[in-house]
């Protein structure tokens, strides 16, 4: 067994192995909802999902993982204490992850058998005389040493900070090989960042007295400090300076922060580059002014020089801090070294003035820190909530910049990108299946989308029986999808009953075949109305993640409908109109309204299903000519909103396909709904969007 513990068999170990095999705490990758969507009831199979891999024995991998998600899974796997096992369901092995101990095909019975095998494997192999250590490139870290006060000081070996004389502290950073080094395009941004100009050191100036300029290094005639290279020429030429995250954070406007840290990579890049380039250069000037400004007031005994020096550097640190909290941090990045290098001259100067154990000005340290709404300058930390976070969809990679337990900035990206639209291109027979694979959370809607686009290209009309069969399929999927969302959402807000019941019903919906479903429909209706009426849930959700009107207009689906916008692609469909469909709309635009819209939609979908004859089962699709050529477009209301597809078909093959998915719009509003909230509320806000990371297109 791969994840066995080191040790030969003794009876206490046998006992422990037996217990471990009985008590299968499970961490599910990508998430439990997907497993249920595939009809798997993990709890019934004896697996107990837990919130953190730290407490799990079994890593259950459902389906094939895209590369980035596989790396995240590998990290989660290595963070599980041994003995640990991998149970792969539906996909024999995943590149980047160790070989699974047990692989099972999709299906409840196969899962049950797989778990039984896993139990045997664990009981027999929890301990082994020799074990391999996981050496996946993804989990490699290298240790670097950093000054706690000056994040720009990063060294490869221990020592003291050249600025303040504090001991450097070690910290890990991801190995260079990992493409997932704290995402959001950070690495790329740094690779592209312009190098520090080589010509910068052509003039030297005193950090305290900017009027002192010399062509070569030396000491300031006024204060005796070491001169530092002057780079102001470059600084002035940087037009992007105003747009640095720092500049934005300095303002108190939360809305502004939201704008900056969008998921849109290019925005980050631009800011980052501008910032990286501007940072070293403006310093001497700023410092000088600061130093003078405070010199008059501040004369603690015998420390004048030292404190000024410290002050300047305090300010440095804050520049760097700002960069870190803003876009992707300098702290972990190779680029950081070059930022640090920028001060090389200055650091030596500091060494001379020996700040060891000296007094450090807190005023200067905090002066440029971002201030919260209550005016306190605090330090912000960046905490990743994804790609494998229990409360959010697996693959959604949200990073909150936390100001205490409040969210000061948010960025969202996905770890599920699986290549480009070109991979969908296929002959017309297989194209619907390809597109259905885009989003494992809504395959029916995407298959339907592909079919309708093809039919539009072919100019084929469908008859009522096919149309009703499609309505049934799509609406059942919507019911299942909303229930699946509700199960995860219930787990996030800690309502065990909602989570369990919704999960149970979701599985029942997924497994539903063509038998009459009157009982299930009744149960779902009862459940939905009970949740809708629960007063504490309403209290919990009201007012969280409210979408501003312009934000709500940028999206579709339940999120838009919860904000009073009656947009629904089904309104355009004559069969839906014939069935008397009306969209469910709420006004408030908060998490509660989104819950209510989805609950109402569950009821409306069940109505539609009943109106369209109640049973589940795919209808026969009209046959298309094998040599079809033409262009077609289609719009389908997926459970998350409108998905639009444009295709060009030539000689029976789809040669061009452009997809606009609802989640691509939804992921952009993540900062809008989460910034300013308490972290739990921000998670609720993000989760209430119900975005599917799988369908997010770059």
């Amino acid at each position, binding site marked *: 067994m791969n994840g066995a513990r080191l040790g030969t068999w003794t009876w206490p170990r046998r006992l422990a192995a037996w*217990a*471990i095999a009985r008590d299968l705490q499970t961490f599910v990758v990508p998430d439990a909802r997907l497993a249920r969507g595939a009809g798997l009831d993990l709890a019934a199979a004896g697996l107990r999902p837990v919130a953190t891999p730290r407490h799990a024995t079994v890593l259950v991998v459902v389906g094939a993982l895209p590369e980035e998600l596989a790396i995240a899974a590998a990290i989660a796997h290595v963070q599980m204490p041994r003995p640990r096992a991998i149970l792969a369901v539906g996909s024999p092995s995943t590149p980047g992850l160790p070989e699974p101990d047990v692989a099972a095909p999709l299906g409840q019975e196969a899962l049950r058998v797989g778990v039984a095998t896993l139990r045997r494997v664990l009981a027999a192999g929890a301990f082994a005389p020799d074990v391999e250590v996981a050496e996946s490139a993804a989990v490699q870290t290298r240790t670097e040493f950093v000054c706690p006060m000056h994040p720009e000081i990063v060294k490869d070996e221990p020592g003291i900070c050249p600025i303040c004389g504090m001991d450097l502290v070690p910290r890990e950073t991801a190995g260079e090989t990992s493409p997932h080094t704290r995402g959001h395009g950070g690495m790329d941004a740094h690779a592209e960042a312009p190098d520090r100009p080589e010509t910068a050191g052509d003039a030297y100036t005193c950090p305290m007295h900017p009027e002192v300029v010399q062509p070569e290094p030396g000491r300031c005639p006024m204060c005796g400090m070491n001169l530092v290279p002057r780079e102001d020429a470059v600084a002035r030429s940087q037009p992007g300076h105003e747009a640095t995250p720092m500049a934005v954070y300095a303002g108190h406007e939360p809305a502004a922060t939201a704008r900056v840290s969008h998921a849109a990579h290019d925005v980050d890049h631009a800011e980052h580059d501008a910032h990286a380039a501007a940072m070293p250069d403006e310093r001497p000037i700023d410092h000088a002014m600061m130093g003078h400004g405070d010199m008059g007031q501040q004369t603690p005994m015998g420390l004048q020089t030292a404190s000024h020096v410290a002050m300047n550097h305090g300010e440095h640190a804050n520049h760097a801090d700002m960069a870190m909290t803003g876009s992707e941090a300098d702290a972990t990045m190779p680029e950081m070294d070059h930022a640090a290098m920028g001060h090389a001259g200055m650091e030596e100067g500091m060494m001379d003035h020996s700040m060891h154990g000296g007094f450090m000005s807190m005023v200067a340290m905090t002066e440029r820190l971002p201030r919260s709404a209550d005016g306190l300058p605090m330090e912000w930390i960046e905490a990743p909530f994804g790609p494998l976070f229990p409360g959010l969809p697996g693959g959604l990679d949200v990073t909150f910049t*936390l100001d205490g337990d409040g969210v000061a900035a948010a960025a969202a990206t996905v770890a599920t990108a699986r290549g480009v639209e070109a991979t969908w291109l296929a002959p017309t027979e297989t194209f619907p299946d390809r597109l259905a694979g885009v989003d494992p959370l809504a395959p029916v809607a995407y298959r339907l989308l592909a079919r309708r686009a093809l039919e539009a290209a072919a100019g084929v009309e469908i008859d009522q029986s096919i149309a009703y069969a499609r309505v049934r399929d799509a609406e059942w999927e919507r019911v299942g999808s909303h229930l699946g969302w509700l199960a995860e959402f219930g787990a996030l807000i800690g309502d065990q009953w909602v989570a369990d019941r919704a999960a149970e019903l979701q599985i029942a919906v997924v497994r539903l075949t063509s038998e009459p479903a009157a009982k299930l429909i009744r149960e779902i209706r009862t459940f939905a109305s009970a949740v809708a009426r629960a007063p504490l849930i309403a209290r*919990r959700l009201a007012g969280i993640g409210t979408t501003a009107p312009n934000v709500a207009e940028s999206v579709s689906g339940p999120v838009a409908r919860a904000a009073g916008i009656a947009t629904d692609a089904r309104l355009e469909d004559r069969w839906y109109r014939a069935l008397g469909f009306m969209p469910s709309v709420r006004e408030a635009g908060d998490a509660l309204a989104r819950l209510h819209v989805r609950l109402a939609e569950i009821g409306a979908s069940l109505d539609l299903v009943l109106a369209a004859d109640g049973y589940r089962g795919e209808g026969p699709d009209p046959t298309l000519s094998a040599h079809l050529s033409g262009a077609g477009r289609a719009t389908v209301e997926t459970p998350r909103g409108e998905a639009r597809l444009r295709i060009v078909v030539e000689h029976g093959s789809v040669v061009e396909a452009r997809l606009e998915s609802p989640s691509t719009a939804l992921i952009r509003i993540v900062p809008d709904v989460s910034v300013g909230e*308490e972290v739990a509320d921000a998670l609720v806000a993000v989760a209430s969007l119900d975005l599917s990371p799988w369908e997010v297109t770059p």
Partner: protein
Amino acid sequence: MTAATIVAALLAGAYVVAVLEGWATTGRFQPGAPLVAGLALLGRESVVPRRPDRLLYETAPVLLLAAAVMAAAVLPLSPELVAVDLATGALFVNAAWAYVMVALVMAGWGPNGAYAMVAGWRFLGQLIAYAMLIVMPIATVGMRAESLATTAIVSSQVGLWNAATQPIGFVLFTLAAMAVAFIPPFDLPTAPGELAGGVAAEYTGVRLAIFRLARLVLVVTLAAAVAVFFLGGWLGPWLPAWAWTGVKTLAVAAAMFAAGRFVPRLRAEHLLQWTWKLGIPLALFNIAWVGVTLWWADR
């Protein structure tokens, strides 16, 4: 000897509570599950996170367990079966519970992880919310008993349980007790969905086992405190005295878990607002109510 009996009863109670909690969270009644889970945790690795505040990280579960045991030491099973019948028992229980918060703050800070730290400081906020609702109802209970000794408090309920004479205090105390033991919906410091385990997130293997054991013992002491202070402790017909305390304690624990299953986790902000804007005025009213009713009865 008494102390040994109390410890044995405590462990047994913790086991039953673990079964009850499993029943509430998974919906299955599995009497063997806690034993298996405990053995499994013993057999698993216990990973120490990189560069934690090792002292705080290691001390926290022990302190949590010690605090729970201290609280249990002054709660009587029967008039004789009490480890230490302190004259200030009711206050001592409070003092012991205060260290629960200290332990969780340590557990939150120690591992140097973001989720744990947020969770740890959150629990301090939770203490600021619930502390007064623990303190004031206990004071009113002491008013009736004219003593802070837990045995005297039980004896004072011979005629009528405190739950009947001071219902407001009973409700407030029970809710606050759930918050002390971070039972859902007050599980802000462990918040599985929100913070991936929170303060317990970085505890694995045997350390997690100790943490969970401590939490279970804590739940027992809080349920026992509700039984002792408000539900007449050992008072009851037919059964032996200790059995009554045990039954009431387990019933309270089961009720707490059952209630927690059906409500969403409270928002930290709401918790503070409700306790300070509604809870404390109610608790003050409760003091006045009890004062007046006692004076009326004694008149």
